[in-house]
């Protein structure tokens, strides 16, 4: 469960009760998350339109949120739907990878885009196998078991590989600085 979940959920529940300031705080908190989520996937130019569309959808469809369920999952499904809808309108046939619902609150704003570039640059310095492991487990968020299946290694080999790769990465960062 992300740190954002309890805070956002509390705001949403208050907003559904008619609390305007909680609702404003919720939407204001969501905007940068959504901007980062869409920005990473379609570029910052079109992202703002989707941010607004998603905020409007959150508003008009808010009766479909069931407070017994995680808010993040609801939010993510709406953002993802708007993203797919965007691709459809652009006449692009794109398959979106299955994502973890946390991905919609995992990042915030433009800093993450720069950070993303830095990570890619560092990863490029690792050998192919280690790079893939880190990418699977730490960036795409696969479980150790899934990564093991994909790379054909045992689960413990994956754990050790990721550990060593991260160690190598932190050594590189040290050398850079």
């Amino acid at each position, binding site marked *: 469960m992300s740190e954002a979940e309890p805070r956002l959920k509390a705001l949403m529940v208050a907003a559904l009760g008619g*609390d*305007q300031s909680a609702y*404003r705080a919720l939407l*204001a908190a969501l905007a940068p998350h959504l901007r980062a989520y869409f920005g990473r996937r379609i570029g910052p130019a079109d992202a703002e339109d989707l941010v607004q569309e998603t*905020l*409007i959808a959150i508003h008009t469809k808010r*009766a479909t949120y069931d407070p017994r369920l995680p808010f993040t999952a609801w939010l993510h499904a709406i953002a993802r739907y708007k993203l797919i809808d965007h691709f459809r309108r652009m006449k692009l046939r794109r398959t979106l990878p299955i994502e973890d619902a946390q991905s919609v609150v995992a990042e915030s704003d433009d800093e993450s885009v720069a950070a993303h570039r830095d990570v890619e640059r560092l990863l490029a310095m690792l050998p192919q196998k280690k790079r893939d492991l880190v990418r699977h487990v730490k960036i795409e968020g696969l479980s150790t078991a899934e990564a093991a299946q994909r790379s054909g290694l045992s689960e413990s080999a994956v754990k050790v590989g990721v550990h060593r790769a991260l160690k190598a990465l932190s050594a590189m960062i040290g050398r850079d600085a």
Partner: protein
Amino acid sequence: MKTDALIDTLAERAAPVGAGRAARILALGAGGGALVSFVAMVLWLGIRPDMAEAMATSAYWMKFFYTLLFAVAGFWTIERLARPGTSSRTQMTLEALPFAGVALVALVRLALVPAAMRMPMAMGHSAHVCPWRIVILALPVFAGTFWALRKLAPTRPAISGLAAGLAAGALGAFIYAFHCDESAAAFVALWYTLGIGLVGLAGALLGRLLLRW
């Protein structure tokens, strides 16, 4: 519009939303449609004249429960599909159970009668009209359910349309059962299911077009 201005505008409209709002919209759409269907059935076909005697037979209750349980599971599935970020796998599985039940009864009964009886049993005397009447009686429920879904937030248009069609078809079949005097399980398993399936197919096709938001 700037996003900050949009947030201000939306925040001013934070009218309270009751917990049951989504379910009420769905109940209104499906219930309103079912009412229209029922009146249409009474005026067009009429309730079977031997209703009182029929209610003493297991065949009557089989049709009743098959279609009613199918409809209940169907609308439960829709209630899940209409909410982003929820899973509806359990409900979809439940939807298959009433059919499995009636199909099993049908196979056992068919196996127990002489071969020459099987065809008349499966065809009854109304096989050529039954599925179409179910489709027609399902239309008001179908329209009401789609109206409700468009107010809610189905993120999977084709699947949601299919579910809406199956649920509307099952409810239409339930209403048709007040008129229909067929009693063989094989008849119900074939022709009721065909009618329901046709509405489901129409739902899947229309869902892609109509369930966008």
